[in-house]
């Protein structure tokens, strides 16, 4: 125990020596955002780690929408197991989508947020017409996939990008249909968490037993780091190819219909936006990709730097700048 405490103190000191500006920014007492925990990993070791507001290394934190990137990883695992394909129609495994127009929605369309289903992704600032609020807490909380599937198809599937939490929960229902309820029940644990040594996971389900893939996964920062490592290693873990070989490339390729967001298959990237000609994060490397969630949850995978950054927060009153974090990560440390 003493050894662990000593290591923690040492880590914090290292942090202050190398990443004092990043530390000052993340834990700025006068800022409206609130950092609960943070870690930075580089080429095999954690080089900066800190916990605040009562959190410790063993406590899981809600990922909010960063859950989506892990949910997509479950689809990758099922593809590796030959349970489904990207080009399969979602209705093949989820009967409510076997209706006119919706029957052409494919698994890839859902991963790319391009189903064409009507949706409004707003939160506290516009609660009364928000489909997310309605899905999580009102009309849809018992069966989130059914809530989403009941929406009108307002664009031809594949032709229009709109970030929708409902689409991830549809994907989870598709996965349940493909795997069967028994295998599905603990699939994240048997196929992802246990092989990676992730022990802190809680993944909440709706009343139908469907994982809330859009929002409700809890992990410690060190366990979330492992998801980043899996992607940094191109889907390989301890010498074994866990994800399909081309999965990371596919995940980080912009969705064909995305014009004003750099978004792939449930991951954000830093590619040049077709509409503006600019990158979303000017201070970040070009090849970085991100899992992001409400209230400032973040995982940055930085392949060229062999760095991974995890930050959990409770930014209810104001948002933190991702680009500023990139700037401070890039200027800190030995590199």
């Amino acid at each position, binding site marked *: 125990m003493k050894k662990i405490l000593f290591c923690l103190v040492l880590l914090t000191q290292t942090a202050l020596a190398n990443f004092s500006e990043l530390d000052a920014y993340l834990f700025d007492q006068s800022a409206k955002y609130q950092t609960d925990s943070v870690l930075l990993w580089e080429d095999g070791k954690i080089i900066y780690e800190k916990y605040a*507001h*009562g959190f410790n290394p063993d406590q899981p934190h*809600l990922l909010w929408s960063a859950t989506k990137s892990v949910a997509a990883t479950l689809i990758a695992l099922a593809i590796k197991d030959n349970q489904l394909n990207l080009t399969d129609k979602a209705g093949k495994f989820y009967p409510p989508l076997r209706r006119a127009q919706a029957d052409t929605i494919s698994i890839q369309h859902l991963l790319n947020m391009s189903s064409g289903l009507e949706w409004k992704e707003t939160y506290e600032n516009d*609660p009364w*017409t928000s489909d997310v609020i309605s899905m999580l807490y009102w009309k849809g909380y018992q069966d989130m996939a059914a809530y989403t599937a009941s929406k009108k198809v307002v664009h031809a599937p594949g032709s229009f990008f709109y970030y929708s939490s409902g689409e991830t929960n549809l994907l989870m229902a598709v996965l349940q249909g493909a795997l069967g309820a028994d295998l599905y029940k603990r699939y994240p644990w048997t196929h992802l968490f246990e092989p990676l040594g992730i022990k802190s996971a*809680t993944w909440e389900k709706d009343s139908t037993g469907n994982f809330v893939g859009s929002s409700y996964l809890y992990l410690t920062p060190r366990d979330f780091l492992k998801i980043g490592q899996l992607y940094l290693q191109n889907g390989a873990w301890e010498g074994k190819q866990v994800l399909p070989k081309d999965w990371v490339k596919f995940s980080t390729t912009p969705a064909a219909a995305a014009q004003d967001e750099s978004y792939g298959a449930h991951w954000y990237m830093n590619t040049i936006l077709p509409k503006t000609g600019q990158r979303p994060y000017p201070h970040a490397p070009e090849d970085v990709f991100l899992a992001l969630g409400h209230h400032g949850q973040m995982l940055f995978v930085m392949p060229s730097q062999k760095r991974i950054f995890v930050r959990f927060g409770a930014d209810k009153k104001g948002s933190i700048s991702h680009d500023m974090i990139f700037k401070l990560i890039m200027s800190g440390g030995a590199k």
Partner: protein
Amino acid sequence: MKEKIILLSTLIFGSCDFPQVVSNSFTKEFCSCYFVVGQSEKYCYDYALQSLQISSYEIHRESKTITASGYGFSSEAKFLSKEEGCRITNL
């Protein structure tokens, strides 16, 4: 003031039971914060509260449930297990 605007908008644009969102979201997020994350009651209260207030809440430690009421509605969320976390369990 903000509360009044939201409530008025709810009455104009929403359905009559929309305000149950307030107690549903509070119980669910409080339950997860308290029983899954293991945070303090104060942290979880601040965390679970959205833009609208609730009138009362209670932590039932033995049954691992949270109940809350607000705007004439009551809600309950229950902790099921370490893997499954919490879920809204209104009757």
